[in-house]
């Protein structure tokens, strides 16, 4: 009962996705002023698609500076503009889901993997989701293990000092770019923009749990105050 339902759901959303993709890329191009061409996915077999997902995230793992958030705009570019896994607004939705759900928010990668293979059916999608998360974690985990085992020698090494001091400001610049990019991807109306700015200020000034902000903003969305 559920499986056929999910499958028809998948094919329906694939059609809708194609429609939305045109709108999504158009609005992104308009917003950024960049000449993003229409996103045409490369045609691959199901397995080839999975390998594309795994290879992409394996290669990005070691670039996740500053706790992993620096990768967000790269994720957006890859899944929306480069490989056409998602529309712009789907990406924004998945980012919000990963932030709202319990656990480390870096699990977003699993959702991207899931979305990448969703047209191939829910089982492939789940495989792709678990695979994507393993791929993004594996290289950084191995490096971290090596770092822990040799930390006593690394601790006072000039490499460590230079890495920490030098990469910090780069991380800062990337995080600002990420913030702007997510804001642009959210692409809400004026009320939504005001909510974004207020949430940003409250995140910096108070220790209120972000879940409250998301619940309240979700309510505003449900009432039609915020839309996109």
């Amino acid at each position, binding site marked *: 009962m559920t499986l056929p339902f999910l499958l028809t759901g*998948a094919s329906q959303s694939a059609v809708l996705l194609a429609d939305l993709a045109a709108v999504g890329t158009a609005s992104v191009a308009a917003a950024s002023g960049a000449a993003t061409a229409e996103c045409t996915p490369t045609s691959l077999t199901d397995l080839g698609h999975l390998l594309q997902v795994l290879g992409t995230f394996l290669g990005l793992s070691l670039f996740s500076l500053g706790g*992993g958030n620096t990768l967000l705009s790269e994720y957006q570019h890859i899944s929306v503009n480069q490989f056409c896994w998602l529309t712009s607004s789907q990406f924004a939705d998945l980012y919000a889901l990963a932030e709202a759900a319990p*656990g480390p928010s*870096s699990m977003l990668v699993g959702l991207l993997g899931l979305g990448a293979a969703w047209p191939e059916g829910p089982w492939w999608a789940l495989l792709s989701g678990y695979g994507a998360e393993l791929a993004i974690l594996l290289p950084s985990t191995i490096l971290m293990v090596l770092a822990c085992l040799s930390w006593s020698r690394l601790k006072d090494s000039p490499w460590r000092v*230079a890495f920490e001091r030098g990469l910090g400001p780069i991380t800062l610049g990337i995080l600002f770019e990420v913030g702007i990019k997510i804001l642009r991807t959210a692409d809400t109306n004026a009320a939504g923009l005001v909510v974004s700015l207020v*949430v940003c200020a409250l995140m910096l000034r108070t220790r209120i749990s972000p879940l409250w902000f998301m619940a309240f903003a979700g309510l505003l969305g449900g009432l039609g105050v915020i839309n996109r």
Partner: protein
Amino acid sequence: MTEQPPSHRELFIGMLQVALSSFGGGLSAWSQRIVVEQRGWFSNEEFLAGLTVARLFPGPNQINMAVYIGTAFHGLSGALVALAGMLMVPFTLLMLLGVAYFSFHTLPAVDRVLAGVVAAAAGMALSMGFKILDQYWKDPVALLLAAATFVAMEFFHVRLVPVVLIAGPLAMAWDWPRSGRSQNQP
């Protein structure tokens, strides 16, 4: 470290407990409470040293912290067990949420609520840069480097990997520890 190192099984259960306790937020606080105060696997100093390593190296901080805890007792296999314990339940829940999303997100009511949630999440993303701005505020070279990184990515659409590969070594050369800072020479 205390007298009895935890077994693989205890590591897994400990990290699972951290993951389950932190539903609703505060992962790092819970990890400290359980690992240091309840189970006594680390002294507070050892735990904080771990946080330093976790923040320094690539990868999400909380995940790296789990790797640090596992590695301290059982090397790579300990790291994998600790990771599995921390991620298994939340990640499976998230995957179910994802399946629900892709099945139902085209419903107008769902989309309307999500539009609101997305606005709040965008505000959270925007705050990330401001959060660490303080520590560089008095350092003009750092601010210049941050601004150059931002401009390259935002206006010239340079991607993350080339930015890190080009700016990273330059910044490291500039910040190489030496007694008198002279010219920029690695």
